[in-house]
């Protein structure tokens, strides 16, 4: 079920009312109802893949329980491997099977051998990369004795499949989300209203910014051979805002929806396009995944301790894995490598933790130095997104070479310029709103809070009006569903 669909607009109020009016007297019943609602939410897309969520839930619940009882290190390790292999096995099969087969075939052919294996027509289950990582973090934390295993199967199951963040995150840690299923939840008016505000802002990001940008990003990237460097650069810019609006919009809706049910999820985006360097960018972009990789891959590998070569190795590993997590395509791996290249100089010169604050905190405009840093980081980000979005590495290189040719100076030419101008205006207004809201949890968090109710409602209604007037009418799924 898409957040920006009529189905969800009907589903959410029904679940909300039943949750608070019918099931609020019993915590267990409320959790069971959340499981049911989450399975309906997921099964709306394809009920067959509910089995995978169920497998993941059962395996990790029992592995967690056993880890709590077992003291022998070897047996504990074995249990951990059961969880890791189950989750990554499912992920590997559904997401990477064909990629490996195709690349093995290419490698065999390259060395002159003949190898004709069958690839499978595999459907990628929506959100598999998210819920497998979430449940995996539980067993790893229990294995590390950082978390007490749960005996409450219902709460654990609800933690794995909690519908607001099931298919595209934020990837929650058991230490944050699981305890919220243990305690009685009471409805809080301010939390719920703030949740609604965040949902509204998320819908603007997705339906107004991302979906409109998608029209041109798709047009230019899918027919890159037909366009000049200047038009392709425009396409890269549109994609830059598309992916941000799409994914951070999803996260806002997920966090806002969770608040309606009395849950607090972690922030997943913190105005990343205002970052002054790449270390800051990765502290602000897809935070739940970055911190997951930091805690479960980077630190176990030795992190930034050890010698220079170890730092370099670990940085490349984490960015490669991060790229590969996004999809079974070399473009994502190149994108990851590029980010490693951007990040490495900061790490090696110990400048990766200098921009920990919010840029231009307490002031309206950044200093010229900060502005130039933001501009440089943004430009390099746009460049990396070209590889992320292109159909293949070869196409990405063709796009880059076209952008760096004299056709960069030709006035962009394409069909639908009028709406492209409208989209550009919307992006500018959106980024202004983001800039002035960068010290808040989300840009519109305090809009109208100091005003009387009728005026505050006018502000909400204006946002709805903007959605209705500018939303893209061809519904498109969230980009991160495919990951």
């Amino acid at each position, binding site marked *: 079920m898409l957040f920006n669909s009529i189905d969800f607009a009907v589903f959410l109020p029904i679940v909300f009312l039943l949750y608070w009016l019918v099931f609020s007297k019993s915590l267990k019943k409320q959790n069971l109802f959340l499981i049911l609602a989450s399975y309906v939410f997921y099964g709306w897309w394809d009920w067959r893949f509910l089995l995978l969520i169920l497998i993941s839930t059962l395996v990790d619940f029992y592995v967690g329980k056993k880890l709590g009882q077992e003291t022998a290190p070897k047996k504990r390790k074995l249990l951990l491997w059961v969880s890791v292999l189950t989750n990554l096995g499912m992920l590997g099969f559904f997401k990477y099977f064909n990629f490996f087969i195709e690349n093995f075939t290419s490698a065999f052919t390259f060395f002159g051998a003949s190898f004709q294996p069958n690839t499978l027509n595999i459907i990628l289950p929506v959100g598999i990369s998210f819920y497998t990582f979430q449940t995996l973090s539980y067993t790893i934390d229990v294995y590390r004795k950082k978390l007490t295993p749960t005996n409450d199967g219902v709460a654990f199951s609800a933690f794995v499949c909690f519908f607001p963040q099931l298919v595209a995150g934020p990837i929650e840690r058991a230490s944050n989300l699981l305890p919220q299923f243990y305690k009685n939840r009471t*409805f809080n*008016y301010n939390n719920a209203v703030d949740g609604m505000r965040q949902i509204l802002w998320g819908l603007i990001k997705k339906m107004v910014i991302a979906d409109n940008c998608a029209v041109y990003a798709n047009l230019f990237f899918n027919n890159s051979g037909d366009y000049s460097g200047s038009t392709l650069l425009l396409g890269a810019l549109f994609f830059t805002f598309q992916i941000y609006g799409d994914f951070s919009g999803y996260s806002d809706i997920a966090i806002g929806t969770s608040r309606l049910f009395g849950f607090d999820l972690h922030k997943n985006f913190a105005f990343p396009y205002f970052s002054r360097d790449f270390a800051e960018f990765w502290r602000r972009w897809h935070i739940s995944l970055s911190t997951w990789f930091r805690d479960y891959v980077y630190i176990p590998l030795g992190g930034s301790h050890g010698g220079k070569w170890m730092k370099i190795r670990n940085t490349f590993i984490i960015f490669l894995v991060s790229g590969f997590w996004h999809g079974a395509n070399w473009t994502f791996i190149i994108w990851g490598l590029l980010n490693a290249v951007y990040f490495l100089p900061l790490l090696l010169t110990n400048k990766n933790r200098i921009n920990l604050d919010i840029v231009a905190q307490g002031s309206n405009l950044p200093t010229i130095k900060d502005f130039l840093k933001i501009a440089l980081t943004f430009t390099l980000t746009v460049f990396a997104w070209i590889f992320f979005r292109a159909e293949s590495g070869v196409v990405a290189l063709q796009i880059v070479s076209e952008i760096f040719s004299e056709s960069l100076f030709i006035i962009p030419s394409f069909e639908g310029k009028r709406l492209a101008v409208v989209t550009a205006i919307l992006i500018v207004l959106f980024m202004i709103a983001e800039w002035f809201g960068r010290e808040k949890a989300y840009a519109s968090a305090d809009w109208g809070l100091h005003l009387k109710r009728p005026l505050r*409602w*006018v502000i909400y209604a204006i946002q709805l009006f903007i959605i209705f007037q500018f939303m893209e*009418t061809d519904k498109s799924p969230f980009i991160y569903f495919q990951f």
Partner: protein
Amino acid sequence: MTNDLNYFLQSLLKFIPFSILFCVVGICLWGDFVPNLITKNLAKKEMIPGFMENRIADLTKTKEVDILFLGSSHAYRGFDTRLFKDAGYSSFNLGSSNQTPLQTEILLQRYLKQLQPKLVIYEVYPNTFSVDGVESTLDLLVNDKLDSNLLKLALKQNDITIYNTLIYSYYQNLFQKEQSTVIPFQKEEDNYIANGYVESEVTSSKKYSYKPQEYLFKSNQFDQFEKNLEILKKGNCKVILIQAPITKALYNSYSNNEFFDLKMKSYATYFNFNELMELNDSLHFYDDHHLNQKGVALFNQEIIKKIR
């Protein structure tokens, strides 16, 4: 129920009608005062191609014709009423932009009795059986009268641009507002001729190439098409189905042309002029799927031969 929840639900129940009212008033003001450049999801007369307004104006002066043309832009840009007049047939072209069977029904209900055609040439472009018909509904909403049938169709299509346009059109009707007082007979390179026909001055020599593709037909459009044929049968009209020529490059890129041909043959007399005529992509078209005047002349000559 806690006080907080009670207050939240009460507030929400008040906010919903408030926001609906706000948006309705907003749409009317938006339509009146905001330049067309930025009215993305609100259609206005000046923004819709196809000269439907001129066609409707001509309809008020027309009674009883020999031939009625129905269909998409391939109809209103492909059947030159002047050439049919020269051949001795009075005719009216009721084609409109991307007209799908859903909108054809509305037009038939409104104008069939008045025109009483002996023959209906129904242009069937496979693409109009694969789309939801939003563009054509908008065309009717801004250019023709609002009635319960059109309202039903608009609600069935469930599209935000249709809702916005519907509200704005009702507001205009209510306050007797006209979007423009002068009906233009020329828009860019298109000329509205008479009796519904639009001629284009453009000649294109562009080369087209396409990846293999297929039409994704919608069953509701075929169902509606059958109903339209029933309406025509009841009106004692002879019906000929015609697929107008499109460029070879575009036509050959579709893999399910044969399926469509078989389907159309099962309904009525059907001619697919992509298979019957040899036209040149760069000489006879002004874009990848519309004939230029040179192409129209050849195409119409062939049709006249078939109906004689």
